[in-house]
């Protein structure tokens, strides 16, 4: 499998690669499979992506699903409508927008997440409204549904949040929380209603 890099403006065909590095403006015209993909420039993919390690410090747009072992986004990663992202580990200090569902064992976001659904095992989204990040990216996170074993949210607007251990932090606006274990709610968080057999803890 060949490694490939795009430093200026370039287009690669879909296919199987070793490591793919995009520091310029790159485009992939089909489905892409790679051991690793690193985007520090701008990358557009017209197909889906299957990758081991995905790193995005620039901007990457995908018209298909992404399946990754690990994903780290300090830049901007966007997947189209009805596209889904699945990974074992997701770290986001930038901005991730997914038209469909993000499914991850572990998700830690200090930046912003925008998705129809975020599901998995441990989901932590702490979105801030200050700092340089606030100037460059949308800051609060908006998710339709969050469903995971352990959930910790701040600065998140969501319709429903369901989990075993749920922490709703400051600046959250949640329609409905369903919790089957322990629930902690910050006094500044807005919650529509709470369902489920859970133990309330102070925050």
């Amino acid at each position, binding site marked *: 499998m060949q490694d490939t890099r795009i430093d200026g403006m370039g287009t690669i065909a879909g296919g199987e690669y070793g490591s793919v590095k995009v520091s310029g403006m790159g485009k992939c015209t089909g489905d892409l499979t790679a051991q690793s993909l690193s985007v520090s420039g701008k990358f557009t993919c017209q197909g889906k992506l299957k990758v081991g390690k995905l790193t995005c410090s620039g901007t990457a747009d995908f018209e298909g699903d992404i399946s990754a072992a690990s994903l780290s986004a300090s830049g901007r990663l966007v997947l189209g409508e009805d596209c889904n992202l699945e990974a074992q580990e997701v770290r986001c200090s930038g901005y991730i927008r997914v038209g469909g569902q993000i*499914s991850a064992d572990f998700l830690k976001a200090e930046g912003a997440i925008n998705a129809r659904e975020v*599901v998995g*095992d441990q989901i932590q989204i702490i979105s801030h409204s200050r700092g340089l990040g606030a100037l460059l990216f949308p800051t609060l996170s908006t998710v339709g549904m969050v469903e995971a074993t352990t959930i910790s949210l701040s600065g998140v607007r969501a319709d429903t949040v369901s989990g075993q251990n749920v922490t709703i932090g400051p600046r959250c606006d949640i329609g409905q929380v369903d919790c089957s274990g322990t629930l902690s709610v910050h006094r500044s968080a807005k919650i529509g209603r709470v369902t489920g057999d859970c133990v309330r803890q102070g925050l």
Partner: protein
Amino acid sequence: MNPSTEHCYERGAISLELISKKQLLAETGISYGQLYRWKRERLIPEGWFIKQSSYTGQETFFPKEQMLARVQAILEAKDRYSLEELAKILSPEAVDVPLAPRELWEWGEIGPDLLAAAEAAAPPAGLSFDQAVLLAALWEGVQHLSLPPESAKDLVYQALALPPPLRCAEGGCTLFRCGGELTLAVTGGEQPPLFGPAVSVLDSRPMSELAGRIKMKYTARFESGPTDESRRK
């Protein structure tokens, strides 16, 4: 039963009982993390996640019997196999190695009524994986309907006469009567088939769970050797 949580997927005379995601977690004790990890690892087919409107909004349901069986299978097997191996075992792809009808009987997948007919009608090399799954489904149907041995044997001959590919892991086995004849069909997909009024459907069951179970027994058999089989249900 609480009518608000009782959901059925009804087509014609056969209904597929559903279980909500919440109920599934409560009944099996698994976590959201496990459910979604298993979906990602393809241990649970995407097609089993059925979205339906309920009085609380859009909810996700699963085919109840299959899902409960699949969760149990994964919980029991996950210490012995890696997730990738489990995914292979549970995937709809068939296993290539032929199986003797006697082994199916030893595994408790077919009863004595079917064994004699299966031994008579099986190809000399042995049963294919699909044929093994179909016979196991047939046995369940025969027991469910309490069919007499002659009818059961006839169904075995009919089943083994079906040309490949059968793709039983992704389909269902339907027993029906048409014009006085008792016969069977292998149908694709999760839904039971729809027939016109001349046909009366007696039994229709999906085979994906059976396929998974038989495949696991295959795999176990190769690890322990063919002489090491004890009768298991």
